[in-house]
Structure formats: structure tokens, C-alpha cells
């Protein structure tokens, strides 16, 4: 018996205008994906792990100063620079648009991290350690990575797999956005985000929150031409990596460069 396959292509849309930099996604990810505890030593060694991180950029000088936040996770590029350099095919592109890391193939060359323009890959320089009792809360769905292994955001593939196995294969039902959301199959960061800045769905799902943006950005591949209908853009678009993550531009009624006052 061969089951009917449903083709998916997953995508994330990050609305920068909603993001407040609150870090809820960061901790949700660490909890869901068994990330090693970022000790003070890891911070001092510049080797803290955050599959999703909030970057903060300063703009201007006091008093006309702004800080901007952007959540950055693996962009799951269609043309992923990390993939061709892996000598053992530990990282590859699957047919659902995910850039997948196979831990038991990884031999730790770190070529992929070197080649990633988004710097979202983290290498386990040490064996991750949890105090014995804390191991109780580790997620049984997610492998704990050992020393010498590269790791990164997986779009919570364990949740996606659970969704496909449960809904499509066992229940023979339709895995639409409402089902993903209601039955908790969305990635942990998306589910946590209190402002709904993070959105995740199948790029072809018209009932989901991402299709409109992927359609627009794919139809108008050159952002500089200003012909897009939405605020969508891809990070470092000019590199041609074609990420499966789309960012929505931050709206700022008072940009610093233009010096807009109340009167003007």
C-alpha cells in the first residue's frame, strides 16, 4: 500500500513591523529543540547557540536614535550555499523546501557554516551537558547533538513530520493552515510569538498567511524595481540564495535620514 503523497513547500514570513524583540521565540526554540544551555562561558567564547536570534541594529545618534530588531533563523534557501560544500551530504535540500541537516552524517568539517551568509549554523565544539535532573525536560522528538556536529534551525521538522504522519497519512485528511495552527504543528517560535510577527504555512496554501507574500516576491524577483505589492523582501536578496523565509519591511513614519517633523 503506497499512501497518497501531498507535496508541500513550507515557508516563513517575518513581519518586522510587529516584532518587539521580546525573545519569546528564542527561548521557545531552545526548549523545543534541546539546544545546549548557553552558559556564561559560551557567551564569553562567542559560541552561544541560538537557532533563532534577535539581532539589534542602532540607527542615528541621541536624541534621534532608533533600535531595530530582526529575528534571524536558517533561511532554508532554495539555492543554499551550505549544501554543495558538504562533502558527506549531511546537509541537503528536501522536496518540501527545507534545508535539512542529517546529524548522523555530519563529520564536522564546518564548511557549511563557513559558507552560510546568514550565520545561522552552530557547531558543537563540546559535548552538550545538562545537569542530570534537567534532562527530564528534553524533547523526545529531537535528537541531542553530540560534539563535532553542526546544527541549525530545522523549521521544527519534528512537528511538520508529526503533522504529515498524523493528519495526512493516518487520518487521510487535509493539512491546511487551520489544522497546523489548531493542532500545534507550527514551529515553536511561530507558536510562541506574542505579536504574531512570525508566520508559517505551506507556500501554496491560500488559507495560510504566507502565500500572498511568496507569490508577490517570486513574481517580482527584483526588489530594487519597487514593483512589489507587499512589503516582502528576502534577506540579502542580491546573493541569489532564494530563501524560503520572507521578511516584511519595517514601517517607519519618521525615518531619520529624511528628518520629518510634525510640521512637514
Amino acid at each position, binding site marked *: 500500500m503506497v499512501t497518497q503523497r501531498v507535496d508541500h513547500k513550507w515557508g516563513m514570513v517575518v513581519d518586522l513591523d510587529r516584532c518587539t524583540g521580546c525573545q519569546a521565540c528564542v527561548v521557545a526554540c531552545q526548549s523545543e529543540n534541546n539546544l545546549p544551555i548557553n552558559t556564561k562561558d559560551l557567551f564569553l567564547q562567542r559560541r552561544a547557540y541560538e537557532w533563532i536570534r534577535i539581532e539589534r541594529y542602532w540607527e542615528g545618534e541621541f*536624541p534621534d536614535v532608533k533600535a531595530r530588531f530582526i529575528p534571524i533563523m536558517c533561511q532554508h534557501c532554495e539555492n543554499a550555499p551550505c549544501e554543495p560544500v558538504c562533502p558527506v551530504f549531511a546537509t541537503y535540500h528536501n522536496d518540501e523546501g527545507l534545508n535539512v541537516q542529517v546529524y548522523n552524517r555530519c563529520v564536522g568539517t564546518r564548511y557549511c557554516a563557513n559558507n552560510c551568509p546568514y550565520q545561522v549554523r552552530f557547531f558543537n565544539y563540546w559535548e552538550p551537558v545538562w545537569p542530570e535532573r534537567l534532562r527530564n525536560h528534553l524533547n523526545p522528538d529531537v535528537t541531542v547533538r553530540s560534539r563535532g556536529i553542526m546544527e541549525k534551525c530545522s523549521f521544527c521538522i519534528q512537528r511538520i513530520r508529526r503533522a504529515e504522519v498524523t493528519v495526512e*497519512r493516518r487520518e487521510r485528511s487535509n493539512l491546511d493552515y487551520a489544522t497546523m495552527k489548531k493542532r500545534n504543528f507550527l514551529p515553536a517560535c511561530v507558536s510562541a510569538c*506574542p505579536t504574531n510577527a512570525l508566520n508559517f504555512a505551506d507556500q501554496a496554501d491560500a488559507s495560510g498567511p504566507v502565500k500572498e507574500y511568496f507569490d508577490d516576491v517570486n513574481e517580482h524577483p527584483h526588489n530594487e524595481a519597487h514593483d512589489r505589492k507587499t512589503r516582502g523582501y528576502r534577506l540579502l536578496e542580491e546573493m541569489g540564495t532564494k530563501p524560503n523565509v520572507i521578511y516584511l519591511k519595517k514601517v517607519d513614519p519618521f525615518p531619520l535620514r529624511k528628518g520629518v517633523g510634525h510640521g512637514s
Partner: protein
Amino acid sequence: MKLTRRNFLAWAGLSAVGAVACEGFGIREGEFSLQSPVSLPEDLVRGKDNWYATLCRTCPSSEGIVVRVMEGRAKKIQGNPLYPINQGKQSARCEAGLQAMYHPERLAGPMRRSGGRGSGQFEPLDWTAALDIFKAELQQNGDNMLMVTEPLRGHMAKLVDRFTRAMGGQHLAFDAMDNIAYQAAVKNVFQQDSLPDFDLANTNFLLSFGADFLATWVSPTRWNLGYGEFRQGEGRKRGTFYQVDPRFSTTAASADQWVPVQPGWEGYLALSLAYVIISEGLQADGVDVGALTDGRGVGALDAFRPEIAGSRIGLPDRLRGETPAEFIVGLAREFATKGPSLAIGGGSAGAHTNGLFNLEAIYALNYLVGSVGAKGGIRFNPAPPIDDLPASADVASLADWFSAAEGLNGGRTKLVVVHQADPVHGLPGSLQFRDALNRDDLFIVSLSPFIDDTSALADLILPDRVALEDWGSDIPEPGPGYQILGVQQPVVNPLSDLDPRSSADVLLSMAGELGKQSELPWDRFEDMLKETSKELFELNRGSIKAGSADEFWNTMLQQGGWWDEKATSSARTNPPAGLFNTIAAKASEPRFPGLTPSRDTFHLVPFSHISLLDGQNAHLPWLQAVPDPLTTIAWQTWLEINDEDAARLGVREGDVVVVSSTARTSIRVPVYPTPAVPPKVVSIPLGQGRRDGPDAATGRRASESSNVMDILEPSQVEGTGAFAWANTTVTLTPTGTSIKVSKFEGIVRAVEIGNTEAERIIITVTPEEL
């Protein structure tokens, strides 16, 4: 099994069969060729997971959560999608409930002090012996008891209140940054006893003063939820948001415009806005300015004309190219004409000697723009569904703590019972609460599951269960605009090597044994909750439809509580007559004790840490490791200072300075210069500097982990007795030493990625360009 050639071949054969079988199970062929099926997690994980609804206890507001439980272990915490306050969303703090549960340094069972007080030497004893000691102490000194707890609402508040009354003692709820001034302002301006909700999702112009409402203030997850809609909600125009704040907080960073005002002058700015609105006749339709000003009109606010206020409140000479007076006029016009508008205030705006005036002036603005009780404005909350359940945490003021310390020092208080509060760490140093507790004629019982600065001084520790193992309830404050009762249930049992006992049950059993059943007629805390469940069932309304009381109870546990969207507040929205006159008459400048700000002194604006809050979460590794959104610093404290001030002092990032306050105390803190601090203002987060407790909270050098509370002036907000925690001025002295700051910034190249400039990472557009 030994790997022989024969074995190897057999396994190789089996794998090939497995490959064919797995194709039949629906694994894609393409993936199968690259990934062995045995590594697919869903094939390996045994057991079935269940999600149980309960409440989070690591946030200032208790949020509804669901906990994933598998084989008796809690695995993941997420927001409860049904719970009206947070609607499935969560903060960074919620998840860490797991770490509290499985913390390696949780206290295993009851302990008795075996060394000198505060020596940290304890010996274990069994529950029977421990409870006998507690009972004897209650019997002997119950009427001289001081019970200290965290801010309590719902059933625990009722229980503790009745317990202390039955014993004849006193109850003080501890909150390092209390909302007493805010509550008083709400009472004076809106005549409401419970805090209001804000309809951010429908607000068009949001003006916030000092409240870090997107990070730590009052109910941050709820405000974040509304904020998302405020920005990009479907079918509405994007809202505009100004944050008036002497500190560039996480919330200020999200604002369209940060308005750096001098600390303590927020109320002057608010009344100046009111002046412009009234003088230009910009008030909303139907607003009776005559009634608001007792017929005096704009004359009532003459002292707050923008020309006068603008020069006093310390706005920068040029803000967006405008002078302070121009800016105030422009802001007032936007606020009045771009409605629905909403003005909110809290945090440091209410933590000055004149904090009550500031907050009243801010909230009164809502009457001028007609947003009181209106869509996109202030939404009142009704009284709780059950009469005798406290819906508002009755938090002790600084004045209360002073008299408590007096009671201790005078030897009148003989017994202190502490439940999950750490006043030794969280009260201003000059109150010397540690010394007050450090007496031989005092018996201290701690009910905390962890050692903290207060329980380290205890004679007896009776470790409580943590939130995921215990019963509880909450009436959220603020509520969502209608009646609600959240229920907390034990979702897992404590691990077998731990023997904690629910403090609520301990108090009930003590009351029973001491013959206080008339006040506390329940055997267990669960019974108390069940009784309420029955009362709610009999109301026969709200979110739960059930045929029997048992069914009602089970459904309530499943859903995480009960609420009735129709039970809203019927409060009238008429302002008190002459409101603006009353407030203007109250106007006063902030009075900073001792030092007057000069070239070498700075205003100190402390703030609640985004994940550690006042330090209550400092023992949880995940929350120590959360980078502060603006500085990205983790695991340590820091002092935010303006770039130019830092250059003048000759200090750079990581240089340790001695921060000395007028309270004649000092701490050592490393500096973090940023462009977003006003000149003459410095900020230090709360949360670090614990002396005792788990390694995550304490295992660092003094300069990395100092407690800003140690140097705060014990000033009070006039008219309330609340703690004016933003009322300290300090001097900075470089020490010449430097430490490496532990921060996320720099781990990835954050300013430039590749060859692309930073501004190409976060692309911005103006509303006109859309």
C-alpha cells in the same frame, strides 16, 4: 551482539527489507535515499503525549499555559490558546517553568538550620518533625507573625489572608517594583478598584509614558498581542506610537518616536498636552471641558503652556528638528486628532516622589480624547465572579516595609513566614532588612523550593511544590474586560527523589491542627478550588456548559479556567468634576534627595530585567541566558550610559565603575555605552546580585552581578507610600579595571553581514511609500 561477517550480512539484508517496507509506510523515496528511516524521530519516540492546561508563575501576570507531558515528565510549555489573556502566546519567561521543575538545586525536603543564621548550613529532617516545629512556633508566636508572600490573587490570596487573620499575624505581599501608585491613579482618575485593560488592537494613536509594557510592565504578553494588531492588524490602518521615557527601553525601541524626557517630568508633559488640546479646542466630540476644569477652561492649566513646560521637562533642544514647544504642540495635535487615541503610564513615570501626579495627569488625557470606556481606549474590568476572591494583589508599600522592619528590630515580631518572596534581595539596601531578620530571638520559616537571600536566613525550610506540580488559581489583573478565573493544576508529580509539599496544604493542615477550622474549613487546597468551581457551576453562565458540577470541574481543568465574555464592567465613564484642576493643583516637581544633578552626577533609572524581572527568575539558566534585547547582555548586570558621557569619564564597554548613591552605598558595575541613553541618565537592570541560592543566580564575581536595589534611595511616592524607585542620583567613579562583557552581540557579525550594509538587512518604508 558481536559483529561477525555473518551478522553483518544478515543486518544488511534486513535493512534492505526495511527500505521497501518504509516506502509502504509513506516515507518519501527521495528522502529515504539520504536519510535512514531509523533516524526519523517519530519512529523512535514511544508513548503518547498529553497537553494539560495550567498557569504560568514566572511572569508578572499569570498567563494560561499548556504543558506537554510525556511518560510522566513535563516536556514543553506553550501558551493556552483558549485563555483570554494571552490567547496561545507566551513570553520568554513562561518556558522556564520547566527548569524550575527539574532544577538540579531544588530543595529535596524540609531542612532545619544547623549553623549560625545565614551560614547556609542546614540539616534535613522529615515532614512530621518539621511540621511539629512549625506548629509549635505558630502556637507560641502566631499572633506576632509576619507573613511575607509574592503578590497574591485568587484562592491563595484568600487562604493567606484568612490564615494570617486566624493566627493574629500580619501579611505583606512583596513586589520590588510595586504598582501601588498606578492603582491609586486608576482609582483617582477612573474610580476603579481593579486595573483596566487597554484595547491596543483598536487604538490608532498610542502615547505611553515610562511603561515598559512590551517587556515587563503589568501584562506584557497581552500587550504584545494587542501591539501586533495595532501595527499590522487586518482591516485597519497602522497605528502610531510615541514612548515618553527617560530610558530607551525595549518598548521605546518599538515606538515610532522616542521622547526622552527628564526623569520625573512626565506629568508636566501630559498637562502641557492637555493645555494644547483644550486651548485649540481639539477635544473629542461630547467632551465637556467645562466639567473637567470646573469651568475654568484652559486657564486651569496655564502653568503648563508648551513654552513654559517645554523648557522645564528636559526635552532635547531639537527633536526631529523641532524645539520642545513645537514638539509638544505637534504631539498634542496628533494625539487629539488621530483617534482612537490612548494614553498610558507606569514604570518609572510613577516611581518618583511626584509619581501619583504624573500618572493621574497621563490617564486624565484619555478623557479629553474620549477614549475612556471606548473602542481602542481604556476598558474597565468588572468585579470578580465570586465575591470573596481577591482580584487585585494587595501589595505592601515601602511605608509598610519600614514599619515591618521596625517591628522586627523592636523585637515585636517573633515569627516570620516567607512564601516565594525575597525581600532581603529586593528591598532597597538602606532599609537593612537583612539585619532586621538577622536576630536570634526570631524564628524564620521559609516555604520556598529554592534557597534565596531570604530563605538562606531561615531556621526552617518547608519546600513548596513548584507551579507545575501544584494547585492554584488566578484572577488576572488586568482582566480581559470580562469576568475570568484561571485555574492552575498539577500536571506532573514531583520526581521521586524530591519530597516537596504544597504550601497551601501545609497552611491548611496547620490551621486544622490549631483549631482554626472555622476560618479555614478545607482539608486541602484542591477542595477550596472545587468549592469555587461548584459556585461557578451554579451561576450557570460563561465559557463552560456542563450537566453536573463534576463535569464543570473537569471542563474547567481542561480549558484552564472559566470566563464569561458577557460579564463586562458597567462602570460609568464620567470624569470626576474638575479633574484637571485637582491634578494641576497636585503638580509638583520630582524631588531628588541629596545630590542635585550636576556635571558629575547622574539620574539612575533602574528597570526590571526582561527575563529575570526583579531577580525572582535569577536561578533559571534559560532566563539568565536570554540576551537583553537592546544590549544583548546575558548572565550579568550592566550600566547603560550615553556614548559621550562614557567618553568624558574615559570608560569603555566592560570598564567597571563604582556607582555611589546618596543612600551612602555603592556597587560596582561594568558599563555598556549606547547611543540611546539621554545625557545625565544611567540605567541598571534589577535581577542580579543574589548572595545565596543556586549557582545560576550567584556563581559570579561581584562586579558582574551586583544588585542595584542596594543603592536605591528609600523614597516614597507622595500620597501612596509606594516605593519611588526611580528617585536616586548617583556618581560614577572608574575603577581602572575591566571585564569582558558576556553578550550575544558579536557572536555573529551583526553590524554588517557579508558585503552588505546593515540598513539592507532591515529595510524600512514610510507609510507613504506603501
